[in-house]
């Protein structure tokens, strides 16, 4: 059944450059047998909240927070247990049931808990728990708060499924589940047409990515006869390079959709229509990093597909600059952060595309970014909360006095993202730039440039929001947010500062070795300390430029219109939407309208009125405007007569 697997499985990658670890899980014991519960808790929460309806209005938000916190506690316990084990025993598989088994196609509902998923579990459940808590305050006045928590819980369950599945089809289940939750949450305020449109746009663009994901899964099945990590990773070295390249490129397409990488990036900025906690949780800290997870998890594919790896690097470089440029021109605080998210995920993708030299750093940056970006999004939410839901930074200014906690916590996130020495982002981004420079100067230059631009737009955001002159309307009275919102901010700010400890003694790279293999050390052209110095200088230049251009001048309340072409382009997301419109949406609309018209006149006309049995019969029937039953009877009679005649003819 498996299409010519013999030809595809010719021994190609003989004498591979390094060993790619094979997924080989052991059965769960002790606390690990509760692995399924990590997913089941938030799932149960979602079901209760969404099916229970108004009955759960009064305590629903606390239930939602509790289920996620429960998952977090479980994740911590399991993580500690895993720490105590040897490298060889750090892959735990749990088989729940046979999902579908048809012919050779067997897909189990299987979970895999290993160092990679362990880190994701901590990040997802930890950040989620904080964001749930924050949302209790943020959504307090929304009559549909209970439903919001139902959706959030659904998201967490799906995201956990995504990172725990031991089979690509299982990943796809979580993949689409987070897509659904994202759709529901972007469009949460669906009475706003813009929110509803943004939700649909996100889902549809992600579906384009899903084409890649689906085809990759199919190709894996056809090639290997399985879609489980274990089976694919064991046989990946035996397939031809062209097959692996195809799988790698298809997976990359899927990753581009979910992680908003060029060319499937256009949905992320619109996704900011969702409530701010959603932006923090889904569109910054967790879901959008799924693409990075996919590439890292599929290291056994990409290690055998150098061309696909190069494609990952190219996409990543383009996106990290693309997002950064957009971030420079936006006045909407959330859109600046969204552009920055695109850009930072570009860094992670870049690292993942560098192979074993980068996987661990991709995940490291993913984790620190999860902290500081969630921190800043929630900070932005707090600012909006205090200024009457205004998102325009031109209407802010000098908010550091009115919102000291928000300001200080946000500042921690800011210092982390620009890579201020000592903060978490400094360690993680620095490592990626190092690896990039070692790989290729051009790639290294892009990463370095990105760091400078990041420093510029983030400083601009800081200045416009918390410094410069007050520009609010007189009726706006900025105020600090309640404790339930500031406590999560403080926790996330602390993590933004301290996230770098993961790198102590190369812990994170060692930890991930069983998943992604040994880290390769490339020779740098200059000593590490010099490179770090260069990075710091570039960042300082970006900050300085922002201070000169924004901090030293009057910020107008209205965005100036007589701006350069570059600014205009950046304001309109580098024409991403225009390109999609021109290439897909409008031609598609014309095609659809054309087909609808043709179907009514052409196809129907031909079939209905044209020659042949159908046409003749229909015209006969039309003439008899009444008595269809009689006509029917006649035709049956006619048929019977034919039948009898035939019988007679034959038996004669």
């Amino acid at each position, binding site marked *: *059944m498996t299409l010519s697997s013999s030809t595809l499985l010719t021994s190609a990658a003989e004498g591979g450059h390094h060993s790619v670890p094979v997924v080989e899980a052991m059965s769960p014991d002790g606390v690990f047998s509760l692995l399924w519960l990590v997913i089941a808790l938030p799932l149960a929460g979602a079901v209760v909240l969404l099916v229970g309806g108004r009955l759960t209005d009064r305590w629903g938000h606390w239930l939602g927070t509790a289920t996620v916190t429960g998952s977090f506690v479980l994740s911590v316990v399991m993580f500690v247990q895993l720490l105590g084990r040897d490298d060889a025993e750090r892959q735990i598989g749990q088989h729940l049931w046979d999902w579908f088994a*048809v012919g050779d196609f067997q897909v189990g509902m299987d979970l895999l808990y290993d160092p990679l998923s362990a880190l994701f579990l901590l990040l997802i459940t930890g950040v989620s728990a904080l964001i749930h808590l924050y949302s209790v305050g943020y959504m307090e006045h929304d009559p549909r708060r209970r439903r919001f928590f139902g959706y959030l819980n659904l998201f967490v369950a799906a995201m956990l499924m995504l990172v725990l599945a031991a089979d690509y089809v299982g990943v796809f289940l979580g993949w689409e589940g987070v897509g659904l939750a994202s759709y529901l949450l972007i469009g949460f305020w669906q*009475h706003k047409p813009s929110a509803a449109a943004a939700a649909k746009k996100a889902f549809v663009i992600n*579906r384009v990515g899903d084409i890649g994901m*689906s085809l990759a899964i199919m190709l894996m099945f056809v090639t290997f006869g399985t879609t489980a990590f274990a089976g694919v990773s064991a046989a990946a070295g035996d397939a031809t390079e062209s097959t692996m390249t195809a799988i790698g490129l298809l997976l990359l397409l899927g990753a581009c959709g979910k992680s908003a990488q060029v060319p499937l990036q256009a949905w992320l900025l619109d996704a900011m229509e969702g409530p701010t906690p959603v932006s923090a949780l889904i569109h910054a800290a967790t879901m959008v990093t799924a693409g990075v997870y996919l590439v890292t998890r599929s290291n056994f594919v990409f290690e055998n597909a150098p061309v696909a790896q190069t494609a990952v690097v190219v996409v990543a470089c383009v996106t990290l600059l693309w997002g950064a440029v957009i971030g420079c021109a936006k006045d909407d605080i959330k859109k600046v952060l969204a552009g920055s998210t695109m850009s930072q995920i570009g860094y992670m993708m870049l690292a993942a595309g560098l192979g074993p030299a980068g996987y661990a750093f991709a995940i490291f940056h993913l984790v620190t970014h999860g902290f500081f970006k969630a921190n800043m999004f929630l900070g932005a939410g707090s600012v909006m909360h205090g200024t009457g839901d205004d998102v325009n930074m031109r209407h802010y200014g000098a908010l550091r006095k009115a919102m000291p906690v928000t300001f200080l916590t946000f500042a921690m996130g800011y210092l982390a993202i620009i890579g201020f020495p000592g903060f978490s982002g400094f360690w993680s981004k620095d490592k990626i730039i190092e690896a990039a420079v070692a790989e290729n100067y051009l790639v290294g230059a892009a990463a370095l440039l990105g760091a400078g631009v990041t420093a510029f737009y983030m400083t601009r955001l800081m200045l416009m929001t918390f410094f410069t002159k007050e520009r609010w309307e007189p009726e706006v009275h900025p105020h600090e947010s309640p404790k339930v919102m500031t406590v999560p901010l403080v926790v996330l700010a602390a993590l933004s500062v301290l996230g770098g400890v993961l790198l102590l003694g190369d812990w994170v790279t060692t930890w991930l070795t069983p998943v992604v293999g040994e880290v390769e050390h490339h020779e740098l052209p200059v000593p590490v300390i010099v490179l770090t110095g260069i990075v710091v200088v570039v960042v300082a230049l970006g900050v300085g430029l922002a201070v000169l251009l924004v901090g030293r001048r009057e910020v107008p309340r209205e965005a100036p219109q007589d701006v350069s072409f570059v600014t205009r382009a950046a304001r309109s997301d580098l024409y991403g939407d225009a390109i999609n419109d021109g290439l897909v949406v409008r031609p598609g609309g014309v095609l659809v309208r054309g087909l609808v018209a043709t179907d009514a006149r052409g196809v129907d006309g031909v079939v*209905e009125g044209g020659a042949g049995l159908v046409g003749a019969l229909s015209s006969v*029937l039309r003439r008899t405007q009444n008595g269809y039953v009689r006509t029917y009877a006649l035709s049956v009679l006619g048929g019977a007569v*034919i*039948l009898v005649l035939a019988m007679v003819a034959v038996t004669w």
Partner: protein
Amino acid sequence: MLTVLIAVPLLGAVLTLLAGRVGIDARSVAIGFAVGTLGLGVAVAALYDYGDAGMQLTQSVEWIGVLGAHYAVGVDGLALVMVMLTVVLVPVVLVAEWHTGEIQHVPGQGEPDGAAPRAAEKGRSASFFAWVLGLEAAALAVFLATDVFLFYVVFEATLIPAYFLVGGFGGAGRAKAATKFLVYQLAGGLVMLASVVGLYVVSAESGPPSYLIGDLAALDIGVEAGRWLFLGFFVAFAVKAPLFPLHTWLADTTAAATPGTSVLLICILDKIGTYGMIRFCLGIFPEASVWATPVVVTLALVSIVYGALLAIGQDDLLRLVGLTSLSHFGFIVLGIFVLTEQGHTGAILYMVNHGVATAALFLVAGFAIRRSGTASIRAMGGMEKTAPVLAGLFLVAGMATLGLPGLAPFVSEFLVMVAAFDYAWYVGAVAVTGIVLAAIYVLWAYQRTMTGPAKGELVRTGDLDRREIGVMVPLVVALVGFGFFPSVLTDVIEPVTGTVIDHVVDGGGEPDDGPVVPAADVQADTQAEGGQR
């Protein structure tokens, strides 16, 4: 047992009609019989031996000796899942259409709440319910018949209740739609009749004639004759299913019929088309089936993409739902004709899942239309605000339709796509575009009808009532349940597909491993495709 299963709804139909005459509540009688039939269906499922791939609970009586026609019924895995789908959907439809026939469905005109239905309306209501039960009896007979002649008779018999259901109880333009429906189906039936006659000829040539499928399958028909006879059956089933370019009756019918009728037509009756392709086209003409594969696969692909594009462009919600089925039947036919076990199991599973998902979508669309008073998407909007449960269920049904993992249709669609990819990568690649198009037609419809500011005057306000929610519950439970535990169904289906595929591979002589399309066929393929565009 199976005869009783067929007879009970038929009896129910007659009694419902009589009850309407003598003043007994016809609806209760009808529901009673529908539930009774459901019970019998469950009993059949309980008696069924899941280890056995052959026909079970068979009964065979000679009917017309000279023709070799029998009254022969039996059930195998394929028939069983279709029977279960039918007996579950019919009571659901009856409850959903509780008020049909009471008051004319006139767009823009409200239903006077609490107005007592007049006697004439009661009679109409009784006849609607009676026709539904009649349709159920005919459909069950179709799925259970193991004699081609009997199959043909009941196949045509399904048209009578279907015609009256469309023509009698729909929206504007229902008379025209009913006629169009009937003409298409009759034409298909006539073509099939020619093949039925032909089969007799072939059968009679090699001994005493017999219309039993088992006998016919063992027959050596000959290449030329087999292909012609195959075509007769295939065209009839392609009208029924429907397959591009024989689909144009579909949208007109669903637009005019009540949503409940559409459920019966699209979710049950149309399955006869794909059911027949498996049972008769592959079962009796394995060689011809292999021969026709490239063309059929092409038509299936065109249906998938074309149906989805048409659906995107619709303004009438019921037309839209109808056209999504063109796309879905493309998937089913694709699964059948790639001639692999995964494809087949996926296709049969698809038949069930599509039945449930599309039923949910039709019914929930109907509920929305009852409130808006119009089926025009342009005139709807913002219903989520006043009817969140309605919107939520619309979304669940829509997500099922677009193949979201975790809901039933995903599994079948994925199996079919994998099988298609296995057949030839480019076939899989074309089919997979369906998942993007499906997302567009579902979510765009949802966006325009349910979200944004409320539009127009609602003829009926408020969220779903208990009856309407009750109708949806079993469907949603099935969608989620089969989404995570499809093996409940595939364990029943798989033994049959194994048998069928073996038969085709043996009879067709050509193995189905890998892309079997020879270069010449590929060329013909692309030409055919080009011609249709």
